């Protein structure tokens, strides 16, 4: 089924000082279906943020798209003109960034910065109408005293409040898809829960792409899961499939690393080693150096994609049992 947003064999990398392109994301394919929430999980450095920035076409200056397409409602975003892309940003695809402390302009008022999204995409609105809508939106995201807060500046808001401001800014035009890049990592636990609550409440109309390395959050909010490792999708499928049958050694490692109440572990399990930087990627399976089940050909040959069920894909050389309909 064609999704609202689809990655098809998308690859990108970074230009190094010698002018060579070092690959980062390799042949990434997955889809976000209309009205569903997809969680993208993986450790730090797996390319989650690059995935989101690729959609927005807001990659760093030294990034290079190496191939593939990113379709949104059937059109390849990568082939759009700059102007058409600007038309989509903020209106159809909106984004909440990873860093709430630095993502707001320190010298412009909160109200102005939220209103800007409307001002851009609904130029017919008057200043007064924009202000009214912004205050309404501030109230929606649970900011107390919105009339007063409207004219305040980012430094007068706490981290959690700033992230609410970002949510207000990203959702005010009712985007078809909301991308949230680790919206809660910078916040403390109680605030995290409130912000997540708010996001699941606001997603009812559109699709959500939620980046996180917290699997607990995925269970609560997401319908589908994409597991990324070192720039590749290693496993993807419906949330139920992945949680009931985590298959890829990396996914299983991630699950083993979740603290649980039932398993009274003295020490929390962590996958040994860390995600390599892109200059150190192996030609074969990028997870091989950390995989307990790695075979010789894993190091040299890219693992194949296998369909375990219609809603469950895994990329690994191991033999898995096929299951029928999820």
């Amino acid at each position, binding site marked *: 089924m064609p999704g609202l947003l689809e990655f098809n064999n998308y690859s990108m990398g970074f230009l190094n000082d010698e002018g060579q392109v070092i690959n980062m994301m390799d042949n990434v394919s997955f889809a976000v279906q209309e009205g569903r929430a997809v969680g993208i999980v993986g450790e730090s450095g797996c390319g989650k943020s690059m995935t989101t920035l690729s959609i927005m076409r*807001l990659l760093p200056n030294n990034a290079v798209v190496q191939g593939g397409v990113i379709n949104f409602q059937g059109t390849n975003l990568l082939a759009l003109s700059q102007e058409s892309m600007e038309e989509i940003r903020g209106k159809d695809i909106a984004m909440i960034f990873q860093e709430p402390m*630095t993502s707001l302009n*320190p*010298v*412009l008022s909160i109200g102005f910065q939220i209103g800007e999204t409307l001002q*851009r995409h609904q130029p017919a609105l008057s200043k007064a109408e924009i202000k009214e809508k912004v205050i309404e939106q501030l109230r929606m995201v649970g900011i107390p005293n919105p009339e007063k807060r409207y004219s305040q500046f980012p430094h007068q808001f706490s981290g959690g409040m700033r992230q609410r401001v970002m949510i207000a*800014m990203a959702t005010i035009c009712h985007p078809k898809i909301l991308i949230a890049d680790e919206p809660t990592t910078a916040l403390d636990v109680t605030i995290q829960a409130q912000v997540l609550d708010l996001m699941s409440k606001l997603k009812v109309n559109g699709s959500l792409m939620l980046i996180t390395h917290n699997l607990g959050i995925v269970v609560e909010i997401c319908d589908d899961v994409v597991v990324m490792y070192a720039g590749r999708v290693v496993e993807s499928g419906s949330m139920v499939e992945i949680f009931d049958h985590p298959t890829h050694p990396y996914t299983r490692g991630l699950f083993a690393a979740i603290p649980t109440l039932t398993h009274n572990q003295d020490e929390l399990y962590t996958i040994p080693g860390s995600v390599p930087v892109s200059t150190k990627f192996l030609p074969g399976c990028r997870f091989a150096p950390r995989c307990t089940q790695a075979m010789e050909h894993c190091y040299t040959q890219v693992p194949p994609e296998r369909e375990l069920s219609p809603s469950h894909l895994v990329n690994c050389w191991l033999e898995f049992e096929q299951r029928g309909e999820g």
Partner: protein
Amino acid sequence: MAAYLTRRIFKGLLTIFASVTITFFILRLMPADPVALVVDPKMGLEAQAAMKAKFGLDKPILEQYAIFIGNLIQGDMGVSFKTRQPVMAVIQEKMPWTLLLLIIVVTLSLLVGIPVGVRAAKRPNKGFDRFVSLLTMFSISIFIPFLSFAFLYLLAYYLKLLPTGGAYTPPPADGLTYYKDVARHAVLPSLVLFINNVATIILYTRNSMQDVLKEDYIRTAYSKGWNEKYVTRVHGLKNALIPTITVTGLMISSLIGGAVMTETVFAWPGVGRLIYDSVSALDYPVLQGAFLILSATVVVTSILSDLIIAWLDPRIRLG
């Protein structure tokens, strides 16, 4: 904000006071004896003493200082040793010329420097940026006196396009002709100072804009669908101008500090030139007054630039 402003003004007054005191003692400690200049040796001894007493030169130095400060607080800066005119009147005549040059140079430098710096910052290390970097490097490192003489020789003596010095052709003409004449005279000194100062503005604007454009909030602005022109203007400029304003304040101070040199080279009738003339005449009251007005200008400039920054940056404004 009110407390901030009060503190700022108080600090400014202190600075002026310190500068006035230092100038006073430096002048008195100079080996030359102004009495010899004020007092005509052909006068009778009594007349000499009366003369000394009139200028207060017969009293001990600390008492002279106390009298000087006392008068100053009442707005009396004394009388010129040389011309016997009140110092206030001398300064009032010269200061507008210094300010005129200052305003021309600063306005032009900002008007040209900011847009050029912004444009260079948008495409770092590309053609325009490279060209601008080279040019600014050249104009910052060039020695101003050398540039002054080169321009004077080329444009005034050799090509005879512009007058060699002064602020107007005496006697001053009437109406529009006078202004045109002043403008012609202002071209050379303004040009020399502009070349050097515009480079500073370009450099600071370019560097700060380059940094600002890498900030996360710039990406946020793009994510709302705005184009580069809007993002640079609305989200970049206000942040990027903060260092530019600071450096403009410093630039004005250094222009004032350099006024003696520039105004002497171009025979510009401002306070700098006045200082030059008064040093040779050992005209203490005038020197005193000239340094006072210049340090006051520096202090006012720095308060103004801090106020502009506070206005631009709510983190400072709202504390």
